[in-house]
């Protein structure tokens, strides 16, 4: 596989179980709480017996005391359906000499690692690539063979074009994306914070969302000096200047913006984890696991 290998899967396996913190509403019985009342192990409430209810859950002690028939209801535990949304806009194709991979490659590796993590703990997992629309969507799967399918799909895709996160997420939510745990891997780079606002839409009462904010080291700090012409990878606009002149100020501005994104997302209940593309994927995975564990 292109973006993950067996050794990585073995290392992920050692991370153990990760609770992503969302009540599952669909799927098979699994390790996650379901949003629905069902027949799990944890008692929730009594409900008056109605015709058709299984007599297996009749609370005989209440019937004996009150001569009324109530059934016990439990929190249903199901497997979680997780969607990994990878930003496929052209800006994700950037890689500075300081980074290990382009942001796209890094996002793919991270998505594959997360897929492995979730599949290994029995969750169902799918991968979508978002550009101005959903450009790629895999069938959810919960077997290791699904990983190969995901890897093949991501290997065929490549970042291009101007991204439109708002429309892509809208498409995702309306196309069966509700009730799943969404993990968005993006650089959030869109004019006027459009990507950030779009990410906020991922959080619904029935969805949990996590944003992995990817950035290249050179994005955070302009390391060029001398006369330089920067070309925007999405809209091809250009800017002639000496980056060294603004380097410090830009670094502060990027950090401030990155923090603003994180706080804004957190305030909405969306987990946000800044990820630098010069960090090993496994370490990021551990940080993700830790973040999920805190929630």
């Amino acid at each position, binding site marked *: 596989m292109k973006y993950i290998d067996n050794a990585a899967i073995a290392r992920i396996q050692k991370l153990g179980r990760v609770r992503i913190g969302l009540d599952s509403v669909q799927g098979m019985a699994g390790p996650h709480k379901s949003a629905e009342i069902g027949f799990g192990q944890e008692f929730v409430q009594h409900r008056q017996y109605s015709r058709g209810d299984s007599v297996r859950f009749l609370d005989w002690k209440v019937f004996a005391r009150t001569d009324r028939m109530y059934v016990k209801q439990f929190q249903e535990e199901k497997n979680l359906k997780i969607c990994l949304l990878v930003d496929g806009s052209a800006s994700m194709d950037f890689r500075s000499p300081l980074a290990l991979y382009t942001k796209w490659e890094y996002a793919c590796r991270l998505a594959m690692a997360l897929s492995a993590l979730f599949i290994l703990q029995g969750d169902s997992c799918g991968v979508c690539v978002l550009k101005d629309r959903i450009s790629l969507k895999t069938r959810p799967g919960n077997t290791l063979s699904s990983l190969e399918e995901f890897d093949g799909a991501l290997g065929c895709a490549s970042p291009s074009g101007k991204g439109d996160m708002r429309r892509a997420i809208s498409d995702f939510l309306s196309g069966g994306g509700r009730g799943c745990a969404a993990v968005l891997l993006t*650089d959030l*780079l869109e004019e006027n914070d459009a990507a950030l606002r779009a990410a906020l839409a991922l959080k619904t009462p029935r969805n949990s969302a996590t944003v992995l904010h990817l950035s290249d080291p050179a994005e955070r700090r302009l390391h060029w000096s001398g006369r330089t012409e*920067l*070309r925007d990878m999405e809209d091809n606009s250009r*800017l*002639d200047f000496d980056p060294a002149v*603004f380097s410090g*100020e*830009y670094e502060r501005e*990027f950090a401030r913006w990155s923090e603003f994104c994180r706080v804004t997302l957190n305030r909405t209940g969306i987990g946000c984890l800044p990820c630098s593309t010069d960090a090993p994927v496994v370490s990021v995975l551990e940080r993700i696991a830790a973040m999920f564990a805190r929630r």
Partner: protein
Amino acid sequence: MRFLAPHLLYFLPLALLPLAIYYLVLKRALKVNFPGLYLVRKVYLKNLRGRRFLRAAVLGLRCLAVGLLILAFSRPVLERLPGRLPAESARDVPVSAVVLLDLSYSTRAEFAGRPVSAILKDAGSSIISRLGPADKVAVGAFSDRWEGGPLSWEPPARAAARLAGMTPSWRVTDYRPALEKAFAFLGAEKAGKKAVIVLTDGFARGFKGLGPDGAASVRGYSPEVELYGTALPAGLDNRWVSSVSFNGAGLLDGGFKTVPLLSAQFGGIGRIRSGAAAAGQVNGLALRRVAITERQAGTGFASWPAGGAAGGTLTGRVFMEPDALQADNSRWFAFRVPRAPKLLCLSSDPQFLLRGHGGHFLKSVLGENVTGFSCLFYDLARLQDLALSDYQGVIAAGFSEITARQAELLRRFVLAGGHLLLVAGPQTQPSAFRFMEDILPVRPLRAEPAGGARARLVPPASAGDFDWAGYQFGDIKISGFLLSTLSDGAQARWKIKYREAEYPAFAEITAGKGRVFFWTPGLETAWTDFALRPVFPVWAGYAAARLGNTRISVRGLGAVIGEPFKLPVSDDLNGPVDYTPAAGPARQVRPANGFYEFPDTDEPGIYRVAARAYGGADTAFAVNPDSGSGESVTEPAPAPPWTVLKFQDPAGDFFARAGGLELFGPVLAFALALLALEFFLAGLA
């Protein structure tokens, strides 16, 4: 402000080099793809205004600093303003000055009631007298050549005295030789401030020798040598005699008669006023005062009849009224006029010499010695009494018959080398020539009264010195002529076109050693009005020249001041001659290589040469300043190639300027300071 190394100023455009580099680097910027310029642009725009100003300031400072560096190495000198700073006392460096006095004849002019040469000498003396004890001075003089000995440093008092003793010459102005000498002299000086002061009238003529590059083109030129000069504050009103010419057969005042005419051309007339007068003298006799007639472009002319010059030398002078520069108001002349050939005119018609007849016209032109020819008029019947051998040519006209005896005499005269012109007339029958048919250039057929048929005279295209263009031959009326055909071996110089055929009008033939000419239209008004036409005097001169086998050509004898005059050895002039210059003692001159060379022509005037032996003829030549040099044009040059000192106080102005501050150090320091500031600001930008 002036520069000691002005050629470095050519590099001043290099001050724009930083700008060029800036834009060159901008074009070669590193191109980088970047994920999103959203944040970058935000930061960039926030800082743009201040940075832009700073960057422009840095660029401006960089250009200014480079420019100032070039300026510093051009060694600028700030000239002190007179009156603001003390003059002599302010000079911290001694001056080595070469004072050059212009001695060209234009400095003989008067300005504000004083000779310009005196004004210039006063200016030089005042400068020399104010030199300090550490200063050095050398004095020289020039015209179009170096006047005087080698330059040397001398005490100021002696230099001033030498300057005061110099007098203007008659030569023209050329600054180049003097500047070359001065630059070479100052080139040997090692230290101190060096200056050349040219005391001159500053008229435009003197700068011709320097060319467009001015003093920089002079050999030995050094920008370290400061060049100062004087110039008159305004031009002078000046007229001059440009040239004098002599015409042995000129038309006086457009009149009919041709006379020996002395003409003078004048310059500068239009600028002054028309109606100026000129006079003169010829061979010791005064010429009357005449008004100068204005021509185009500020020139004028005047003319005088000058008879009696044949066979000798005509010398004299033409002069005009005084003006600012009197040195060019007169012009000497000397012309050698050849001896006039003797002609004889014979006729048998008593009315031939009366008004309205051919003889009258001939006499008015060829008689009275007006064309330079000496022509006598006799009756044809007295032919046997005359010694024809005394004459070069004979004209036979106004006769009805030539007898056999007369024909025989004329034939002998021609065969012996004489020239004969036969002029037909209404009274002349074709048979009149029957005894001399063998020497006639034409065969007379009949007297043809042209009547209604139009006969037209056709002149030759050109005849040596005679030019027939411009005369209206179509208007000449010919009502009769002796219709003839051309003899064998004869040539028809002039023709008559009559009834679609051409007949000889002026034919000639060689007979023995002489020549015979025939004029078929005659000169009588009964046949033609040719003799009344303006072309007739010229024709008469032409016919006389052919008869005399010569043309009266006057030779001007003249030389330019300072140039030796050369004369070839001739029959008239050979062996040792006595030479009397216009100024100076007479001495003997011998010919060498076929030429006499008469030197010491340093004054205008008549220089006389007297033959001592072999019966040679005395002669003379005139010496004048070079009228074509433009020295008489007393207009100031628009931009002399030196610092012009104030005319009112040249000494004060010189010391104020010579004490100027050299700004190399301050300008260099300022440029370096700007570079440092630029370096600092570049760090911020």
